[in-house]
């Protein structure tokens, strides 16, 4: 009897929470689907007379969603690929060779990733203004205000977490496997690329999902290290759109929801991967 009331209480609690969690999202969708004129008259909490996609199409054209989305793609994809590659290299060495400073190395990477971004930003900002790069890599000629600059900082910052996760994962792969390859005369590169890396596919997939979402969702680096609104990736471009459509919340919310589509796709299709990635980072005891 007592157990049953407990169960019912648990369900009631969870249902209430789920409602609290889903309402803001659905509410934003509802507002985005209604014409501004109507909500100005009736408020957001009212029965819709007309549902329309015009906010979405207006935001798409006036807010140049596709342009900003492509900015994000050209920052996120290279950053994820490079992070995974570099992190797996470090992780391989740390988990397979016995250096005296293995642990120190891991500490440097892991601790770096835990720093709040704002600790770095002031000197980093000056550094980005000071580093000149050829124009074919950056149209500003600097790391500041360039796509390359955002890729570099996202890679550097996310390396820490990725090294931590991958080295833990690689440690669970038996050494015998690449020991056997060593006997066959395989080089270090071959052992890494042909033997250990393929075995890390589950961890790499989980990490790729996580990194893609994080870097796509990044707001801070882009706000501080990009000066031309035009070059911003989409998440931080939402801040400009807010200024652009300042009186039209319906359109802002349509734009914001469109910006979230890639993460919602990940949410629907790759949720397991995402959670696995987070768990990998957390379960090293």
């Amino acid at each position, binding site marked *: 009897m007592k157990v049953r009331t407990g169960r019912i209480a648990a369900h009631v609690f*969870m249902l209430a929470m789920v409602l609290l*969690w889903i309402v803001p999202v659905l509410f934003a969708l509802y507002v985005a689907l209604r014409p501004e004129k109507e909500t100005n008259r009736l408020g957001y909490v009212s029965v819709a007379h007309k549902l329309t996609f015009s906010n979405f199409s207006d935001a798409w054209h006036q807010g140049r969603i596709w342009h900003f989305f492509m900015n994000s793609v050209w920052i996120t994809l290279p950053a994820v690929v490079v992070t995974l590659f570099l992190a797996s*290299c470090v992780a391989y060495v740390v988990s397979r060779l016995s250096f005296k400073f293995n642990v120190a190395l891991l500490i440097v990477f892991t601790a770096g990733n835990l720093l709040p971004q704002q600790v770095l930003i002031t000197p980093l900002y000056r550094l980005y203004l000071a580093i000149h790069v050829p124009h074919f890599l950056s149209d500003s000629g600097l790391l500041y205000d360039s796509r390359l600059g955002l890729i570099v900082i996202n890679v550097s910052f996310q390396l820490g977490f990725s090294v931590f996760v991958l080295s833990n994962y690689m440690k669970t792969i038996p050494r015998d496997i690449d020991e056997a390859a060593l006997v066959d005369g395989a080089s270090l590169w071959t052992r890494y690329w042909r033997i250990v890396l393929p075995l890390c596919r589950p961890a790499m997939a989980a990490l790729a999902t996580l990194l893609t979402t994080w870097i796509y969702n990044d707001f801070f680096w882009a706000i501080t290290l990009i000066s031309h609104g035009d070059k911003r990736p989409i998440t931080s471009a939402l801040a400009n759109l807010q200024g652009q459509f300042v009186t039209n919340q319906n359109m802002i919310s349509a734009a914001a929801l469109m910006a979230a589509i890639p993460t919602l796709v990940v949410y629907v299709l790759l949720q397991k991967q995402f959670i696995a990635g987070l768990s990998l980072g957390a379960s090293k005891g």
Partner: protein
Amino acid sequence: MVVDTEVQAPPPVPRRRRRRRQLTRRDKIVATLFVGIPLLLDLAFVWFPALASVFLSFTKWTGVGSLHLKACGKPPLPGLPQPGCMYGVQNYNIAFTNYPDFWPAVRHNLIWLIVFMVIAAPLGMLFAVLIDRGLRGGRVYQSVLFLPVMLSLALIGIIWELIYSNNYGLINTIIGHNKNNNLIDWLGDPSLNLWAILVEAVWRQSGYVMVLYLAGLKAVDPALREAAKIDGANEWQTFWRVTFPTLKPINIVILVVTVIESLRAFDLVYITGKGNPVKGLELLSVEVTQNIVGETQRIGFGSTLGVVLLVISLVPITIFLVQTFRRDEEER
């Protein structure tokens, strides 16, 4: 799944076998590059700035003209850009005694942390425990509660503006405060806005804690719980006396995530203020940023605030590192 394999300690490797390993010259070069390039990136773009902020915090520099290693004298001709100079602990002095936003920012960060600690973390743990006990529909609950973790904080800020909107918003309409004479300005009123923003932050953070905690709970040996049950412990006792202590590693992860995330808090406030400072929402992270994105850059002073943030964040970072790497050290 991956999580399960993760918890097992790797089999101990006899030292001798390690030593027998032979590296060719080429292998050594490859290994050096494998570590060297990522390390260089990490040092140049993470650690160098972090440490440079300590140095810069003792200077006064507008970013115009170069930085000199001379003590700041009297300001030269007014209107001329002043080169950077050594300012001693003046910036800290100004921050602690003169800068009106400093103590409010510290207080707000602290409130943020406390709310994360006493509301978001326990709430996330509760979600995880309930779902882990095999509540029917648990997977659906988990998916919904997890949704905000996937969304960017910028988006979260925007969708909650609709909830809090003065005239049209969900809350004011429901409680009847949507007329121009009785509006509640949730996001503008300095005595309310921090709490309003914290609701948004908790909304996201508890889902995050839940996912981390679920991973931890899955790794707990079910036999432990069974044994406690047989011994006559009720659910409450079983959790606190048996399950919770075995979750120490994950508890530390959650503690660290909680502290770090509350120090990093930035995006929600930036979106809510449309990039402008908002009274009532001062945070250290926001203050740091204002000193470089504003019209007059104060590199030295901005760094000073960064150092304050650095010193605070070193506490949880150290706890995490000690807990995580102590065992590695013991193994060698």
